[in-house]
């Protein structure tokens, strides 16, 4: 058994003994703590990992609680259902499903809204649900709520607080495992990736909208489950526990424990359950106490309790690594070139056109950024686009990769018209790109960054990930192996565990290329890959681009370094003020009078 298992097992053993000596009151409170942990897990995935801020989560919890309260109360009259205890199970299931449904409903208006606008969407939802609970008296019982929510039973055994304790504890541990499995799978990686850069995620084949909806639904699942358990624990539900400040309370729980850490909910939720109880006599100061805790946490533990601990451990690990690295430097050996099977065999350059733009035009307001530009990029060729600043080069790349939709003209990729295709669709069709301002997923490891790039080729489902099925594990091992090969390909394999933001700038550029290659592109768009690199790094980049070309991947290169462009390009197109002013092989471009004029101004002899 691994050493890391000893502490959690010990804690679980300790927790199993609690009901035997703690007395009903504290057992009851501990059950409440487990329930809050479950709810916090959902919020942790949504806010902590995916970075989507929810201030209306209590509304989702309320859905779970009210659904099971109403349904199980109705079904208790049906003898054959109630005797084995199915009425409660069905009630909880209904609560979870309803909560997921509402979660998806919240997600849709949240897709395009950002920052405070997103906060408003979630606040409104929470508010509407709360209002409905208060006002729809015939169904929800209004302010009084619903009393006499049945206690769960298994056959003839009625689950009192002590027995219910074990059920909820089991569920809580199961939820923690599911959280861990989800976060450490491509779903978790993709959510975190979204938080750092939606554009980069989309360019790697991640369907941004789908994943946001998914984050909301998964989060609502936990909220609904927590709410349903809450209803059966308290035996009544009323709107008091599902107001705006309760949503704030959930947020405080994960903030306190550490948002975006696996153990954050485990630390935050229990403390916030027990604290108000200990301060029971000071009930009139409740908001003051919470207010002070929030401010204290923000000042003293900005990453939350577990976030700070993790940070500390990370620092220590890095220190040890650095010492090892220093030793390694002395005996470094030259890299042996591997054949790189990952990108397939070397392909011969063909004359097939892989990308064509036909009279493409793009306007921003009244400004014509791209004016009837036509290009043909051949399979396995390096096609460069150069031009003075503001000529429209990046805009053209954004059009090709689907971030903008052209006003007129056509873009044909792989024989299909793709004018309106979204970036993630194009990525799965074999079009990859890098960004002018490097867009890495900063807080993820180098290896994880590359792993995100495999999204278009991953087939395992979220259920397989949550329960670690064989198919998922196999796929994960496969892509890990391949990702390491890609890192070797660009020469970064020794940095696989480093955080992407800690890489030197030149390495970051190469990592971005490795990530793009992981999508297995037919065409790679590079947006100023040499910007900010020194002469040596440019030389390495030169070799890398050629190595990619040999594999038969077409490359569109936007670049200012003329030496690099002239050296490696098969074809060069020159843009100026949004128009293509010249096209041809490097030598021809160098002597083209129009190009010289665009770069150096009008010739004196003219």
């Amino acid at each position, binding site marked *: 058994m691994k050493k890391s298992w000893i502490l959690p097992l010990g804690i679980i053993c300790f927790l199993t003994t609690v009901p035997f000596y703690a007395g009903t009151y504290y057992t009851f409170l501990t059950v409440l703590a487990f329930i809050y942990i479950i709810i916090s897990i959902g919020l942790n995935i949504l806010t902590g990992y995916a970075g989507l801020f929810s201030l209306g989560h209590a509304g989702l919890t309320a859905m779970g609680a009210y659904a099971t309260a109403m349904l199980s109360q109705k079904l208790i009259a049906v003898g054959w259902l109630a005797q084995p205890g199915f009425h409660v199970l069905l009630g909880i299931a209904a609560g979870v499903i309803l909560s997921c449904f509402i979660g998806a409903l919240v997600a849709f208006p949240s897709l395009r*809204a950002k920052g*405070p606008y997103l906060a*408003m969407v979630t606040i409104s939802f929470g*508010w509407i649900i709360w209002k409905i609970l208060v006002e729809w008296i015939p169904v929800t019982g209004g302010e009084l709520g619903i009393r006499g929510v049945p206690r769960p039973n298994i056959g003839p055994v009625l689950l009192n607080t002590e027995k219910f304790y074990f059920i909820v504890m089991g569920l809580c541990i199961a939820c923690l495992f599911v959280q861990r499995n989800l976060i450490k799978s491509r779903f978790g990686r993709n959510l975190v990736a979204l938080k750092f850069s939606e554009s980069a995620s989309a360019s790697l084949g991640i369907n941004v909208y789908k994943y946001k909806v998914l984050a909301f639904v998964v989060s609502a699942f936990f909220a609904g489950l927590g709410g349903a358990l809450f209803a059966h624990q308290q035996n009544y539900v009323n709107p008091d526990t599902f107001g*705006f400040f309760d949503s704030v309370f959930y947020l405080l729980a994960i903030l306190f424990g550490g948002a975006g850490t696996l153990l954050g909910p485990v630390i935050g939720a229990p403390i916030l359950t027990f604290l108000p109880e200990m301060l029971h006599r000071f009930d009139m*100061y409740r908001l003051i106490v919470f207010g002070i805790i*929030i401010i204290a946490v923000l000042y003293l533990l900005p990453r939350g309790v577990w976030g700070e601990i993790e940070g500390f451990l990370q620092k220590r690990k890095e220190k040890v690594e650095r010492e090892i690295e220093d030793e390694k430097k002395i005996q470094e050996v030259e890299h042996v070139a591997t054949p790189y099977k990952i990108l397939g065999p070397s392909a011969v350059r063909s004359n097939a056109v892989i990308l064509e733009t036909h009279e493409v035009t793009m306007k921003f307001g009244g400004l014509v950024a791209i004016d009837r530009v036509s290009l043909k990029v051949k399979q396995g060729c390096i096609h460069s686009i150069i031009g003075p600043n503001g000529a429209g080069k990046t805009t053209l790349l*954004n059009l090709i990769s689907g*971030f903008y939709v052209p006003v007129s003209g056509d873009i044909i990729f792989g024989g299909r018209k793709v004018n309106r295709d979204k970036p993630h669709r194009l990525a799965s069709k074999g079009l990859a790109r890098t960004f002018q301002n490097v867009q890495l997923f900063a807080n993820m490891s180098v290896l994880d960054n590359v792993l995100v790039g495999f999204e278009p080729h991953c087939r395992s489902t979220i259920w397989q990930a949550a329960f670690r099925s064989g198919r998922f594990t196999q796929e994960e091992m496969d892509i890990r192996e391949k990702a390491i090969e890609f890192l070797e390909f660009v020469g970064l394999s020794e940095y696989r565990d480093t955080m992407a933001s800690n890489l030197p700038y030149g390495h970051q550029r190469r990592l971005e290329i490795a990530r793009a290659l992981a999508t297995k592109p037919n065409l790679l768009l590079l947006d100023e890959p040499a910007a900010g690199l020194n002469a040596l790094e440019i030389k390495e980049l030169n070799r890398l681009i050629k190595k990619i070309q040999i594999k038969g991947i077409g490359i569109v290169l936007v670049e200012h370094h003329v030496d690099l462009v002239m050296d490696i390009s098969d074809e060069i197109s020159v843009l100026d003020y949004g128009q293509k002013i010249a096209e041809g092989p490097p030598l021809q471009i160098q002597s083209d009078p129009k190009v010289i004029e665009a770069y150096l101004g009008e010739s004196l002899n003219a």
Partner: protein
Amino acid sequence: MSFFLQILISGISTGSIYGLVGVGYSVTYTTMNILNFGLGMWVMMGAMLGYTFYVLWGINFFLAFFLSICLVCIFAILMERVSVNPFVLAGSYVWVMSTLAVGMLMLNTAQLIWGRDPLRFPSIIGEKAIRVLGLGIYPQELLIIVAAFVIMTLLEAFYRKTLTGKALRATAFSFDIAALMGINTTYIAILSYVISGCIAAVAGILIAPVTLAEANMGTVLGIKAFGIAIIGGLESAKGIFVCGILYGILEGVLSGYLYTGIRDIIAFSLVILVLFLKPEGLFGKRTFEKV
């Protein structure tokens, strides 16, 4: 018809309060990209301080008004220093939580000082409804409308005509560039909080005679005004004010012809619908995402 006109006038009056508080949100957002999530509590604070000085202590109204505003300014400075400034560079949820926390502290403190019951705040221009064309209009409602328009005009003039106002707008455009141009951004940040807090507090003093003053009066009002600021598009003060008035009328119509309970449900559903269709608000500028 007269029923509708009645609704219209009180709708415009509550609406201009919503609009004012909404503009209060926008003032700090445009300069610092930070929202004060507890702004509703500042409305309450204005009303409560006004109540204490004017009703409880019997000070002359204008002096009481002046005293309240002075106190609000001091609080605003304190708040900016303690709960906003340290978190400007942190992630957005950090300042959401810190400003909310201050709001919670204010709410609970108010409950302890003034209790939870509504308190009567007599209007300075008379309590009797004026009868015109079969309508009963409270003078305070008219005062609110006039005062709100005056405040909006003054604010606009301040932004356009004074050097400090221009500095605020410059900071709104780019904090860093403003700092490089020699604008004292610390001062501007504090100033934006003072302006925002004062607008909210004045709104509180204005509305208190109509709704009664109570510790909880700012919670819902704050959330509604935030919704209006969002719908109007946080960057456009005029848009927010117009939205506030429209929202006030809508609320009046809904509670006049349907019933009060359903009012907020419909109104907030509309907020969500607007954000679904126009995520940047009705009057916000659509920006092309730069990739």
